[in-house]
């Protein structure tokens, strides 16, 4: 029972609930609910994007990976960051100029609403479900470990809080939860990294030397290890991370919360800075954990003769490296703080995902596909709130069902789906005049189905989860193949599309292009 952690977590929950109440009073229109009325500044949005992206999995997972294998953790961090410039150069401002609430607004700008929004909603819900399962399972285990709360109760606490934020406070509450969480996480991680560096007189060389002396793998932790095995997997994973970021629905949604294209660009600049800084901190934290924890048996399960496994024997697994380090550098009070921050981190990320999923159901499926645009704004918001509730219940159930399953591949698959379905459809509809509805739908579904199919047949699922002796698809990441299929599918089917509507869609590109580049008409659309 960690009293400090529980007290600090309750303080966080109380603060965010007060904010949610305040946000609920300001949330009247659909624009308030989905996009915080467009009133978030570039800097605030940059922090909120960073909050959405820096999950507990990346904080604990990457510092744990650095702890276990050193340099490999850096290879991973780099991959998580390089998608941001792509989001800025190709997507952010055009999204702001063409859309209102979801990325499907952009893809459906000149293409037919019903098929395109159905595809985008499926793509969104697939990404949200995969990401959410991974977060919920991680959350339950972490909270069980840190707070002593039984797994199912932890799932319920997370589910209830995320639905409360989203359903009552909409995007305004979700944004401020992200901002507070980002500040807490960056502050806590900065303190830990600073404490580690201070220990070594701010000499990286001294820290690395001490780490190579403490780590059983010695000097080899300073170079690439086992993370990258073959070039195809490396390229494929790299593509998923780089272009998947530009297809994550909860991230894309954040660009509608700012006033204009200028602010959308600034938000990516700040977000890239915060996230990059955060990854450098996790690298220092991981090395700090090697030097300060590995020689202290208190953090490991005891084995015969006073010996212990310096990696696999860590109490709670290597993902707990950052948590244990917080105790080593700041005592039990700071351990409580970091535990509470980890909990807050999970809450913020699942809230962002829930809002993205609920918006896809209410704005894309309900308002556009079923009601054909005839639904009132208030009904649409109500549907969104109900969807958030349903997503919350489903998330708790899935979290419960998947408790003892291997979910490590799910975040990677979420990125692969985002890179193979959402990103190609979005990019081709923005940049290529020849894209038609038929092409986008065929290519998008091809990307989605092939990404999921290849992962099911891959070693991570076919062998490790289903227990078959031989994987039918040899690589763990499908993006190289599924992205290619999606782009090819969109191109070839659009080229072959001879329908009358296809000609109209191609002809509508010129006007869409002017708006996507200049924002003419964009302000009017978001003020509806």
């Amino acid at each position: 029972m960690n009293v400090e952690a529980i007290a600090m977590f309750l303080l966080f929950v109380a603060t965010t609930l007060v904010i949610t109440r305040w946000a609920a009073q300001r949330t009247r229109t659909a624009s308030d609910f989905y996009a915080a009325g467009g009133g978030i500044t570039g800097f605030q949005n940059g922090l909120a994007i960073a909050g959405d992206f820096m999950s507990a999995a990346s904080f604990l997972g990457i510092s744990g990976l650095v702890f276990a294998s050193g340099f490999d953790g850096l290879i991973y961090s780099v991959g998580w960051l390089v998608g941001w410039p792509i989001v800025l150069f190709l997507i952010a401002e055009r999204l702001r100029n063409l859309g209102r609430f979801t990325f499907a607004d952009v893809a459906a700008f000149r293409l037919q609403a019903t098929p395109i929004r159905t595809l985008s909603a499926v793509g969104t819900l697939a990404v949200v479900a995969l990401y959410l399962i991974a977060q919920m399972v991680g959350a339950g285990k972490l909270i069980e470990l840190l707070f002593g709360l039984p797994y199912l109760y932890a799932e319920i606490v997370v589910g209830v809080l995320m639905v409360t934020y989203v359903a009552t406070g909409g995007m305004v509450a979700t944004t401020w939860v992200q901002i507070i969480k980002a500040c807490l996480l960056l502050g806590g991680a900065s303190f830990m990294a600073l404490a580690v560096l201070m220990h070594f007189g701010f000499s990286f060389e001294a820290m690395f030397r001490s780490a190579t002396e403490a780590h059983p793998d010695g000097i080899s932790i300073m170079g690439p290890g086992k993370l990258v095995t073959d070039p195809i997997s490396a390229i494929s994973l790299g593509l998923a991370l780089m272009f998947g970021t530009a297809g994550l629905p909860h991230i894309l949604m954040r660009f509608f919360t700012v006033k204009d294209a200028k602010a959308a660009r600034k938000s990516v600049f700040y977000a890239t800075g915060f996230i990059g800084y955060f990854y450098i901190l996790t690298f220092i934290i991981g090395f700090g954990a090697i030097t300060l924890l590995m020689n202290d048996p208190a953090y490991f399960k005891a084995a015969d003769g006073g010996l212990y496994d310096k990696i696999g024997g860590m109490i709670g697994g290597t993902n707990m490296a950052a948590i244990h380090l917080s105790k080593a550098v700041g005592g039990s009070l700071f351990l409580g703080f970091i535990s509470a921050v980890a909990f807050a981190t999970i809450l913020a990320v699942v809230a962002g995902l829930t809002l993205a999923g609920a918006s896809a159901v209410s704005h894309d499926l309900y308002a556009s596909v079923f009601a054909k645009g005839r639904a009132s704004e208030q009904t649409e918001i109500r549907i969104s709130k109900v969807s958030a509730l349903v997503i919350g219940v489903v998330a708790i159930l899935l979290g419960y069902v998947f408790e003892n399953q291997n979910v490590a591949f799910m975040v990677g698959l979420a990125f692969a789906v985002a890179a193979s379905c959402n990103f190609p459809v979005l990019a081709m509809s923005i940049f290529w005049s020849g894209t038609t509805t038929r092409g986008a739908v065929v290519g998008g579904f091809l990307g989605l189905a092939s990404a999921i199919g290849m992962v099911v047949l891959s070693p991570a699922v076919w062998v490790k989860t289903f227990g078959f002796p031989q994987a039918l698809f040899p690589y763990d990441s499908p993006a190289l193949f599924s992205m290619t299929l999606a782009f090819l599918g969109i191109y070839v089917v659009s080229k072959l599309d001879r329908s009358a509507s296809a000609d109209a869609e191609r002809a509508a590109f010129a006007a869409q292009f002017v708006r996507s580049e200049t924002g003419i008409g964009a302000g009017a659309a978001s003020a509806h």
Partner: protein
Amino acid sequence: MAADTGALIERVSRDPEFRDLERRRSRFAWTLTLIMVVIYFGFVLTVAFAPAILARPLVEGGVTTLGIPLGIGVILTAFVLTGLYVRRANTDFDATTERIIERLK
């Protein structure tokens, strides 16, 4: 209102200064994209094909390897590239866009 916007969009799409702006903007954005792709995949392919290069110590007898500054360097480059893009887009490109819209209104 809608008709006005439609007519303005029509005039902008045929405007030579707009076309010139779009050429410059798209060249800039795609060049930066290419730089990021080349740097990142250069790093990943070095990891895959020539890991020994990254595991080489920076100085004789030291433990800090070349891979550390290179990896951190990719992160910093990503940040710097976004800064370059935002600076040019929020000044040069936006000012030109506003000028074109003012002139054609």
